[in-house]
């Protein structure tokens, strides 16, 4: 009806006396030009205006010096720090130019560093592929097996004509990535087991799970790492030793497993009781019920918290610095022990912080996307 005759909106008023014809009038559009926007979002009221002015004042005070320091009067490239010691010079990005190989790859032999580059890329590609819900299938496990074994061969070498590199020399970004990705991969089954154990009706299994989860969640990661590094050698029979990397890795897996267990438990509790009862009514046994009915739904529910757990784990791997592993944070700290470049610690830390930030920020955005994506799937 309304499509047949569209009067000019201003005409609408002149036609009011005509009965039975109501013309739809669009609501007044918000004037979204810059001034109107600024008026409603920045200068809406007196306190608002004061806040805006304060914020602007701060920005004007802070931003130009930072931009000047970082981009305009900075030194981008120089083989020695002398160019940075001149008065009035800003950021000395030359420290990154000179040290980035060590920051990114640690003590790994210089000529062989294409190998950690390739394994890092393998991991990043595998993570990126796994992020897409379209590829969630059993074949993904195959891809991961290939990536883990492939990067292991690359990093260790010793076959295919690659010189052997012991894992004491691994370091930097590949180490951080491997610790967090493999850590989460092993902590996940551990967390599922502990979560199932905590919900079990069998008192012994429940108490073992509760003690493990609460004990680990009550203490800092540092103390778990300390325990792993000083106590695992004591636990093992005489003559058996395992290296620092593996010990720290065990500590990380045990630590993350407890947090994963709590996330998975949230998913288990969120499932409607009917799902459990229906599975029982079908005559499924405990493991069949868990594997076919409960876990697929529960894990789907907890994927966003699990991604968040991955983010915090990625940041937490920086603590292996304390037990003497050369992860990304330790390499930058070691690079700064060079007295020549020591004064330019801000630039080196900013560079490292950017790497961490990029990974964490995109994972966080991904987790938000996933939350929306999975929700629409459930709502139908």
């Amino acid at each position, binding site marked *: 009806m309304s499509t047949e005759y569209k009067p000019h909106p201003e005409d609408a008023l002149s036609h009011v006396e005509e009965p039975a014809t109501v013309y739809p009038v669009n609501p007044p559009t918000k004037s979204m030009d810059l001034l109107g926007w600024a008026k409603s*979002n920045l200068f809406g009221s007196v306190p608002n205006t004061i806040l805006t002015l304060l*914020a602007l004042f701060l920005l004007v005070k802070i931003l130009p010096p930072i931009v000047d320091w970082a981009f305009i009067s900075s030194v981008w490239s120089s083989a020695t720090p002398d160019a940075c010691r001149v008065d009035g010079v800003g950021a000395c990005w030359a420290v990154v130019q000179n040290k980035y190989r060590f920051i990114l790859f640690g003590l790994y032999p210089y000529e062989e560093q294409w190998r950690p580059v390739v394994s890092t890329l393998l991991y990043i590609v595998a993570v990126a592929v796994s992020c897409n819900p379209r590829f969630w299938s059993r074949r993904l496990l195959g891809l991961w097996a290939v990536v883990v074994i492939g990067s292991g061969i690359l990093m260790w070498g010793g076959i295919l004509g690659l010189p052997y590199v012991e894992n004491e020399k691994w370091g930097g970004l590949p180490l951080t990535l491997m610790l967090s990705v493999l850590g989460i991969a092993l902590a996940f089954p551990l967390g599922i087991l502990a979560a199932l154990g905590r919900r079990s*009706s069998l008192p012994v299994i429940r108490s073992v799970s509760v003690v493990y989860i609460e004990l680990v969640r009550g*203490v800092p990661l540092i103390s778990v790492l300390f325990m792993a590094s000083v*106590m695992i050698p004591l*636990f093992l029979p*005489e003559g058996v030793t395992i290296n620092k990397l593996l010990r720290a890795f065990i500590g990380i897996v045990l630590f993350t497993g407890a947090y994963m267990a709590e996330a998975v438990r949230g998913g288990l509790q969120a499932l409607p009781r009917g799902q459990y009862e229906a599975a029982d009514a079908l005559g499924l046994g405990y493991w069949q019920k868990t594997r076919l009915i409960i876990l697929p739904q529960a894990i789907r529910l907890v994927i966003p918290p699990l991604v968040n757990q991955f983010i915090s784990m990625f*940041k937490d791997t920086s603590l292996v610095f304390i037990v003497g592993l050369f992860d990304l944070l330790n390499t930058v700290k070691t690079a700064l022990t060079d007295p020549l470049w020591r004064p330019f610690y801000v630039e080196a830390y900013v560079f490292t912080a950017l790497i961490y930030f990029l990974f*964490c920020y995109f994972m966080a955005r991904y987790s938000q996307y996933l939350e929306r994506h999975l929700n629409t799937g459930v709502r139908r």
Partner: protein
Amino acid sequence: MTEPNKGRSGASFFNDVRVRGIIAQIVVLGLFVGLIGYLVSNTIHNLEVRQIATGLGFLSREAGFDVSESVISYTPADTFGRVIIVGLLNTLKVAVFGVVIATVLGTVIGVSRLSSNWLVARLATVYVEGLRNIPLLLQLFFWYALITVSLPSPRQAHKFAEGWFLSNRGFKFPWPVWEHGHTLGVIGLLAAVIAIYLLGRRANRVQAETGNRPNVLIPGLAALIGLPTVGWLIGGAPTAFDVPALTGFNFSGGALISPEFAALLLGLSLYTSSFIAEIVRGGIIAVPWGQTEAAVALGLRRGLVVRLILLPQALRVVIPPLTSQYLNLVKNSSLAVAIGYPDLVGTANTTINQTGQAVEGVAMIMLAYLTVSLTISAFMNWYNGHISLRGGR
């Protein structure tokens, strides 16, 4: 089967769910006990081979190493037991300050993210995203380097007033020479806090009975200022100050905020505040808009709407995640060991290195953190129960 089994399902013995449950538990228990026993026997053997003593006897031996700062008096001649107490108190000190600062900052930033002011909301977002996506340890290194490398040496210290110095050795400021008057003043302050609490409760009762709320602000302020002053005066009104002065290459006298403490407190508070900001934002969003409209329709003033309607409901959502952030802050304070602040992990670690008694040392660290964590969660659970909806009233 002519007669159904009572209590047992009709399945054969080994297919009975309860029998299987018992068998599974026996197996798990056996594996668990076996594993522990194996590890313990290995440990005892290893300790014997390495000739490391066991037991807590080392706690009463002389420590022989110094710590850079301590809440209680400490000298290297004191025992290992005392040095671990010193570490624990240092951990608690930074945790208490950190929790307060992070909560205040986090609330301000969280509210700012919801501000109708575009610029303020954006700045708050940048703050939150920037801080929470960078590892805390990296931030600690950054702050520590900023303080120790960028600030001038004591000889060129920034001097704000007589005795107020900022240098790469920390922040020095005058501090009263402690006497009875100060102790009595602190007691007066505590009494004032209790008095204000009681005044508030009485005001609530009177308001519930008569509808008029007696004024709390003025008597409260009077108590807050008056009682400590009275205590101080009774104690002889001491006015002596210990003013820092440059002697040689460093300052002597006065009170000190060390670079380690400052870096740790700054890093912990900023990092945790970014998480608290998100929690506060979530809590405010969780209160339906209709609640605000209803409150305004009742004629409540803006401040009262926030205090009586929004805050109580938002708190219910906020308290549980806030508790875990407080616990995280306490646990994260253990990163102090990386920048040399003598916290519990730091002093216990030195003790382990000196005595070789790793098992006892690590056990004590874990026990201390577990105690602190459980205390905080117990308190927050009590508080949460106190403010949550009471069903069936």
